[in-house]
């Protein structure tokens, strides 16, 4: 069993409760052992960084220091929330890139009796750990109820695939990790062109007009590709696209109904668990209709992604670039 230090983040306890509930349910099934960091504090999201430098990074680094001390044999911190993940990774990276920052932060931490050596922890996102450490083969082996016929638009948001200091993802713009995971669950994955485009972040609270436009772009594109629902890994994205969908519709006079749920919830369904236990029903834009499709025999539908010209019909297309993709992962080894 792989043990990891879990940094849940504030939203996992409230707005993204479904994420937390489903994660706790599927973790033992796939052999993911998580230990919560003792007395962790808020990472500051994107707000604290806008006020100050040293306090913001010290706030983040208290968690790193606590995690490093708590080390239960593991030096990997797993963060399911994108902003938390980015903040932790960024703090560690910048303290290495700019030693002056590291010194300043450690001096502040010392006032609380803590210290942190930059580089002593590996900070990884939940999806990264599931796909590369647990491995897609393991996931596939636990699927008892494949999501056949369910058209899913994978939505990663922006803060996970970018800026990716430690090169963990296959691409900044069109990464394949979530696609492959959903495929392993048996779902029909659409080639969603906006899969790493921004949901607007905190603009829903600060500048709603800007945010609604960004949300509209995502939903209208997923709708264009006839997705049944969007699968995401970020609490903020889920909140924006789900909770603010009504207001967005009202703002533009549209009537979209695009459910958006967490990928861990879909994993739970595919593993044969009860929807209720996985946080279904917490979403404001109901996923009931979409989920009714699961388990129902549907005929094979053709790919409606942009058709590539076949040989003999027009000019040949270049072959895809060989890129880092998840393969059979050996337990405990990190695939870079």
């Amino acid at each position, binding site marked *: 069993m792989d043990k990891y230090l879990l940094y849940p983040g504030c939203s996992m306890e409230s*707005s993204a409760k479904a994420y937390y509930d489903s994660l706790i349910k599927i973790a033992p099934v796939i052999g993911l052992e998580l230990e919560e960091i003792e007395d962790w504090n808020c990472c500051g999201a994107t707000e604290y960084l806008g006020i100050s430098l040293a306090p913001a990074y010290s706030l983040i680094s*208290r968690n790193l220091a606590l995690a490093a001390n708590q080390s239960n044999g593991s030096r990997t911190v797993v963060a399911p929330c994108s902003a938390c993940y980015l903040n932790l990774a960024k703090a560690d990276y910048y303290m290495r890139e700019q030693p002056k920052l590291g010194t*300043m932060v450690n001096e502040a931490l010392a006032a609380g009796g803590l210290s942190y050596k930059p580089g002593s922890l590996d900070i990884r996102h939940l999806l990264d750990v599931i796909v590369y450490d647990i491995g897609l083969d393991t996931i596939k082996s636990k699927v008892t109820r494949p999501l056949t016929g369910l058209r899913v638009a994978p939505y990663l948001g922006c803060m996970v695939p970018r800026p*990716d200091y430690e090169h963990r993802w296959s691409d900044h713009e069109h990464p394949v990790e979530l696609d492959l995971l959903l495929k392993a669950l048996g779902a029909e994955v659409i080639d969603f062109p906006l899969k790493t485009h921004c949901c607007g*972040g905190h603009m829903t609270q600060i*500048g709603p007009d*800007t945010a609604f436009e960004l949300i509209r772009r995502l939903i209208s594109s997923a709708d264009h590709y006839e997705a049944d629902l969007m699968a995401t890994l970020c609490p903020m994205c889920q909140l924006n696209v789900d909770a603010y969908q009504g207001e967005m519709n009202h703002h533009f006079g549209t009537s979209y109904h695009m459910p958006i749920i967490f990928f861990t919830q879909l994993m739970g369904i595919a593993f044969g668990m009860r929807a209720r236990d996985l946080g279904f029903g917490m979403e404001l834009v109901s996923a009931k209709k979409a989920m009714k499709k699961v388990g129902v025999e549907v005929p094979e539908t053709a790919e409606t992604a942009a058709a590539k010209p076949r040989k003999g019909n027009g000019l040949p297309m270049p072959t895809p670039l060989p890129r880092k993709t998840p393969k059979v992962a050996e337990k405990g080894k990190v695939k870079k």
Partner: protein
Amino acid sequence: MSSHSCRARLECFRMREDYMEIAPTVIPPPAPIPKLIEDLTLLDEVSRRTAGVSRLEMCIQCGTCGGSCPPAADMDHTPRMLFAMLRAGMRRDALMSNTFWICVSCYHCVVRCPQNVHIADVMYTLKGMAIEANLYQSSTAPDFSQTFVDMVENYGRGFEFGLATRHYLKHFPLRLPGMVPMAFGMLTKERMSITPTRIKNMAQLTAILKRAKELEVGHHG
């Protein structure tokens, strides 16, 4: 309802003096008399105050950032223009711009920039500088950030209900009725709590942040 929980609920509504302002807009300080010499220290200052090595001086003004930015249409200046203004020492114009307040931190610009400039982090720096200099067109974003920070400094965790009520009451009171269904949904589905959670070792966090603030002042000199 016990008196204990009543007190807990009242606590979250306690407001400090400076947040009792009703008017959402801020009157900026009077413009300085134009100087002959440009403020060429501005670029250096921004660079120094940014986390990591900003590489701001390497910008070739190619426009990739402005081209990638999802909310660029809503900005006064594209990110690229803002950097040009920083180089030109246009302190007041740059800090009064709404560009960095609209930045959504999507990092498209950062990964595409051909000179690896830490664009998103420069935006954070400018936010802090604008608040410090009290130069912004609309106080909505600065207030939101400050409210959030206030919550974290009191509880060590975020508190969405408190954040939302304070923020919307102050800045978007007219939106509140339209948001009732959403708020109701969030509350009934247990996605939002009316009471905050506090971390155990709040004293430790407070000490850390206090020292950090002292160091910050020294750093900026």
